[in-house]
């Protein structure tokens, strides 16, 4: 996991992608008339963020590149989640 910290470009990309997907999911939720989700809905939103970032990483072949360096997909989740989690806690 530590190795991903050496790849600043990847690290930043996953943090930003996590935030962007969160914004997209929350906008969709707002359109679906769920302006302030309950705890279960919040967990679901974070799950969608993780799944979307992982799928995007696979589409871009990043999982293979990182895998060959011994970095598991869990490291991607670890970087994509914090900003989304923070936004979820701060934004009502």
């Amino acid at each position, binding site marked *: 996991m530590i190795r991903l910290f050496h*790849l600043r470009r*990847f690290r930043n990309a996953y943090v930003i992608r996590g935030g962007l997907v969160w914004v997209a999911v929350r906008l969709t939720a707002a359109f679906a008339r769920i302006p302030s989700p309950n705890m279960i809905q919040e967990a679901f939103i974070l799950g969608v963020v993780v799944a979307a970032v992982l799928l995007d990483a696979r589409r871009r072949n990043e999982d293979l590149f990182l*895998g060959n*360096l*011994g970095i598991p*997909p869990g490291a991607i989740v670890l970087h994509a989640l914090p900003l989304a989690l923070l936004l979820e806690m701060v934004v009502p």
Partner: protein
Amino acid sequence: MTSTPPLLEVDGIGKAFGASVVLKSAGLQAWPGHITALMGRNGIGKTTLLRIVVGKVRLDYGRIVYQGRFVARPSLARFARAGMMYVSQESALTSLFTVRQHLEAYVAILERQDALEGIVERFRLGTILDQKPFDLSGGEKQRVSLALALIRQPQCLLADEPFAGVAPKDRPLIAAALRELRGAGAAIVITGHDVDDLFEASDEIVWMVSGTTHVLGSPAEAARHHQFRREYLGPRGVIGA
């Protein structure tokens, strides 16, 4: 095959996608200092077998043993930490990086600064260093992927169709890189259709047909295999085998 035990042993692998059975009982072995070529028609399951080995596709049944240990849940990252590298058909590159950044990431993480300059020159990467993978041809991607493999110096390399889309003038580069890794003791498995290149590069031919694999022996022995000649090589046979 050799006196040393195989580094990678894959046995009795089965995989179906819905009603479509792709692999029934496929297997392969990779020995240190040895190149095994997995050959077979398009869509027969060669790529699926390699993807199963590195954990990108879940197997239905079968056995994978790496470095003498049974692997219950294959994972590329775990294998990579134990010296394996996988180069897929689409190469080992990501759209996020330029060629230079790929090389620099490998050099930095693997602490192989000494290797960079020689490899750039050898693989004629100087003109494409600032390009991203989507600007590269299939052959250029394979050249960069094998350059990364030479920096990585894996104990086991699984390369899916390393000669696919490579211009004739660049094929010797790919073959030389594979030979160099073999010389360094790597256990290598390659797949493909280019009979001449695969026969020249490999020590052993494994033929995949109807979801099962058959070890045919050396390229010369494979060229004499009646059924392989008739069903795969066709009337042309093999030149120079």
